């Protein structure tokens, strides 16, 4: 745009490039006042608000980080504990298994021993009873036979010495017979 044309068209006294000095003064002083207020009041408050927010957010982040760290530590601790517990359980199970096997073996031996002991005792008892039965049989058979024989022979054998001999003879025979039978 041709500025002279514009100025001419605008007419006398209305050159838009010529300032009113009072407007310069009012704008200059006004802006200085505004700038003063901004420097003293507005800008510090906004900066402060901004700082506060940054601090709060950073503080929050730090707090969150600390919480996360703690959580991770707790998790690691729990995992370690879990591992420990699992190892412990395994160990206990192994122990129990071996202990169980031990107990079983012990019981088996004990049972075998007991069985042997009972069998031996029974054997001994049978032996004793046999011996006592043999002894009682010996006396009973002797007197019975003598009584029977004296009844049969009727006083012929009143002589004690003879009868005693006969009986001993008989019993020795009997014993011989029995021994021969047992050895067979």
């Amino acid at each position, binding site marked *: 745009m041709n500025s002279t044309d514009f100025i001419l068209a605008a007419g006398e006294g209305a050159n*838009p490039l010529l*300032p*009113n000095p*009072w407007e*310069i003064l009012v704008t200059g002083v006004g802006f200085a006042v505004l700038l003063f207020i901004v420097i003293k009041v507005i800008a510090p408050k906004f900066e402060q608000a901004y700082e506060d927010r940054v601090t709060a957010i950073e503080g929050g982040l730090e707090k969150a980080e600390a919480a996360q760290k703690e959580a991770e530590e707790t998790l690691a601790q729990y995992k370690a504990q879990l591992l420990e517990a699992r190892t412990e359980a395994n160990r206990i199970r192994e122990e129990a298994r071996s202990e169980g096997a031990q107990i079983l073996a012990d019981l088996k031996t004990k049972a075998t021993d007991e069985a042997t002991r009972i069998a031996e005792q029974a054997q001994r008892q049978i032996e004793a009873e046999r011996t006592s039965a043999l002894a009682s049989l010996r006396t009973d058979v002797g007197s019975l036979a003598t009584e029977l024989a004296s009844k049969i022979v009727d006083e012929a054998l009143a002589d004690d010495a003879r009868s005693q001999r006969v009986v001993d003879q008989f019993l020795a025979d009997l014993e011989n017979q029995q021994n021969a039978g047992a050895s067979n």
Partner: protein
Amino acid sequence: MASSEGGFIPPTVSDAHLPDIFPWFAEYGTGVGKQMIMIVLSIILITWFFTAAIKNPKLVPGKMQYLAESGYAFVRNGIGRDIIGEKNFRPWVPLLFATFFFVLLNNLFGAIPFLQLPSFSHAGSAYAMAIIIYGTWIGVGLKNHGLRYFKLAVVPSGVPGWIMPLMIPLEIISNFIVRPLTHSLRLMATMLAGHIIVMLAASGARYLITVQEGLAYSGLGVGVIIGSVAMYFLELLIMALQAFVFALLTAIYIQGAIDADAH
């Protein structure tokens, strides 16, 4: 079109300057008018909004605080940190913040019914802002580099010596003379142009509908009004964009003064 028929007088730049509110001051030439009232109003509104929004800052902001914080963060990070750099931007945030919202709100006044005047369509205000920024970045350069700053600012490095007689005057003109002019006139001209379009559309539509006879002209007037709505939204975009550009250039000038020895 209309003026050929003799009835339509197009609005001029002088129409952008309303009569003094206090006519008894007029003889002193103060020109206290709507524009100055709006400058003061913008300062009150910006101060009120941002102090109220951050009065009781919450960690989880409400709607108003969120809006204010977004605005602050936009200037702080989007303009300050990105342009000036992580190391040096902090002291300049208040200046950029005040500049951006001061220009933005005064531009938007042009889109608010009844106010309907972008303050920076008046050259004085734009010059004032440009002068403040100009003084600021030259001061920054002197503070950081001493008098050597002027050499750093006008003598480009890595340029062969024989071209220096050409480069140095060009750099002086572009950095120290043209820069503040473009900085202020860009803002002033776009705002004034937008304002004139609004005035033209309004007076033209009024002329077509009320003064001219015939349905066709009235229809045309309605068409102008509809078209001016589209212009209105374009203006909104330009208002915000110019405020952003003004603050962005401020940041770029300051960054250039801080890092004058870096290039």
